[in-house]
């Protein structure tokens, strides 16, 4: 059977700009230095958001993928960029979260008056652009090796964000994160070379035609999945995540928890559904979901036991990442239930991104106001920062899966898919996870909203616009739940595993 030759589609050039602009901005920020770094980010934020929306509009209008064949060299010799509905939706998510974090972080990472340049602000703004470009590359790549490079760029942009303050404990958290990530990337690369050896191409579209269920493919998918799970911090490879995400400055925690871990998750989805649909088999998908279920239970229970707010939110990320992996046994194959599970799993990734970014930034504001983030000492904060605490609670509702949030729709779709396909045990996990999530949220909200007889805790002022940014993100995670279900059709466009099914 001759391989289909990839050709650039109209609008494909947008994909190149989505990669070039952040990369060029990062280089320029580093070259010009000083205050220019922040200005470059502020200029690129609306441009990048516009590009992401344009890509999504292009995918929706054509009802097909956007492709750009770089340099006119078609795969397997050349590289292609490919935006399907999943890429487009995640690109918009990335752009919105990055823009919100950028606005929020202006107060944290300002170059001090009187000095030309400071290390932490320059590093933060440059890395933020690098991270954005790397995420776009992860979402648009169509070549497994190209994706490896994108994933490494993402890691190298994310690790220094953990230790911006240079304290020993954050340095050691960053080092642990980096070592996990490096091991993950080597396992991924090992799988890639096996696939190339067996099938002679690394292009996702071409591979999906050629891959068969045989030992070479099984070994490769196992190695690559384990490697990617180390980067996604799925239980039991989550040990690096809580200290790294909790130790980072609040805006950095927000991008790390909301976006960076999703990058490697999206690659697992690509691998299991696009590259080799059905090859890993039902039992393997059950194992993956079992790890997800364990992550939900362990992450939530550990979150319940934390004394510090940021640690609690970080463990909640461990738990919420578990939900993402429930989609693997539920979304395979044709039919209505798998379709819902696919939408539910990805919607969980998207709504968690908005909710978690809002919660980490809310925690940052609370810590700034009170000077600490001990949960026991949160008394009265609800009166000091009502908008922030409200945003935190809204984000929490989405994590719990209460209507009308995006998290509710996501978990509802997963739940119905589990019941419809007769895999009721995953439904139990989803419900139990929601209850546990409620438990740790009430641990925070009870002291935060406690009546302190009019005594306000001693607090530092917090800029109003920063509270508004946090609330805005939390509201986005809510609004996702109010959209009609049909509007998530975008997520189905360009699925390679569906193309194979008549």
């Amino acid at each position: 059977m001759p391989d289909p030759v990839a050709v650039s589609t109209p609008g494909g050039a947008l994909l190149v700009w989505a990669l070039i602009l952040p990369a060029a901005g990062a280089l320029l920020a580093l070259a010009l230095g000083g205050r220019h770094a922040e200005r470059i980010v502020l200029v690129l934020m609306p441009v990048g958001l516009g590009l992401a929306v344009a890509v999504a509009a292009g995918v929706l209008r054509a009802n097909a993928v956007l492709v750009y064949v770089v340099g006119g060299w078609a795969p397997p010799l050349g590289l292609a960029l490919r935006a399907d509905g999943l890429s487009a939706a995640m690109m918009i998510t990335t752009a919105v979260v990055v823009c919100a974090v950028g606005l929020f972080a202006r107060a944290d990472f300002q170059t001090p008056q009187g000095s030309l340049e400071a290390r932490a602000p320059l590093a933060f703004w440059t890395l933020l652009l690098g991270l954005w470009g790397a995420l776009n590359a992860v979402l648009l790549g169509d070549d497994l090796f190209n994706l490896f490079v994108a994933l490494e760029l993402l890691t190298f942009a994310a690790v220094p964000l953990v230790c911006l303050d240079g304290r020993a404990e954050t340095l050691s958290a960053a080092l642990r994160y980096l070592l996990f990530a490096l091991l993950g990337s080597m396992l991924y690369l090992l799988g890639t070379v096996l696939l190339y050896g067996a099938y002679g191409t690394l292009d996702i579209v071409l591979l999906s035609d050629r891959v068969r269920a045989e030992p070479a493919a099984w070994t490769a998918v196992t190695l690559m999945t384990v490697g990617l799970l180390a980067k996604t911090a799925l239980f039991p490879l989550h040990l690096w995540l809580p200290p790294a995400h909790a130790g980072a400055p609040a805006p950095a925690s927000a991008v790390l928890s909301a976006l960076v871990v999703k990058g490697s998750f999206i690659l697992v989805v690509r691998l299991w559904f696009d590259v080799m649909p059905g090859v890993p088999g039902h039992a393997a998908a059950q194992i993956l979901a079992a790890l997800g279920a364990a992550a939900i239970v362990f992450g939530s229970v550990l979150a319940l036991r934390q004394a510090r707010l940021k640690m609690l939110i970080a463990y909640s990320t461990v738990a919420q990442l578990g939900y993402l992996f429930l989609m693997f046994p539920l979304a395979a194959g044709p039919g209505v239930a798998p379709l819902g599970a696919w939408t539910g799993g990805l919607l969980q990734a998207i709504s968690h991104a908005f909710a978690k970014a809002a919660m980490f930034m809310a925690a940052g504001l609370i810590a700034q106001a009170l000077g600490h983030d001990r949960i026991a000492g949160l008394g009265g904060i609800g009166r000091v920062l009502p908008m922030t605490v409200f945003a935190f609670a809204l984000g929490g509702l989405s994590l719990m899966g209460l209507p009308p949030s995006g998290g509710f729709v996501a978990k509802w779709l997963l739940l119905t898919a589990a019941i419809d396909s007769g895999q009721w045990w995953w439904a139990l996990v989803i419900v139990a996870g929601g209850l546990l999530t409620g438990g740790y949220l009430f641990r925070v909200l009870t002291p935060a909203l406690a009546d302190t007889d009019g005594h306000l805790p001693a607090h530092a002022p917090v800029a109003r616009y920063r509270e508004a940014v946090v609330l805005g993100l939390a509201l986005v995670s809510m609004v996702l739940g109010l959209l009609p279900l049909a509007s998530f059709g975008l997520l189905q466009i360009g699925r390679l595993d569906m193309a194979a099914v008549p």
Partner: protein
Amino acid sequence: MSEVTLFGLGASALVGIGLYGFIIQPEPLRRLLAFNLLGSGVFLLFGVIARRGAAAGMGGDPIPQALVITGIIVAFAGSALAVALLLRLHQADRGGAAPGGDAPPAGGGDGDRT
């Protein structure tokens, strides 16, 4: 035994040793070295695959050779970042100057504070 098989087995051995070392060593520096061993095994495997896929009249398939160069650069960059973090951690642990977010103006790198 053909040379492809021989080198393939060598690559597997390196991957195995690297993985073993990475898992059992608690010291970050040793884990980093184990990571590099693992990496060497993977890169050798790229060479083996290039050799095996050689077309008539060519010494090897050029694509894996092009990929392996990128792979080596990425592994090098990762190792350099890890070593830089280790050095900073060592300084901070000795109670040395661990500058906060407001280091003096441009110019001075981070490594030259000793």
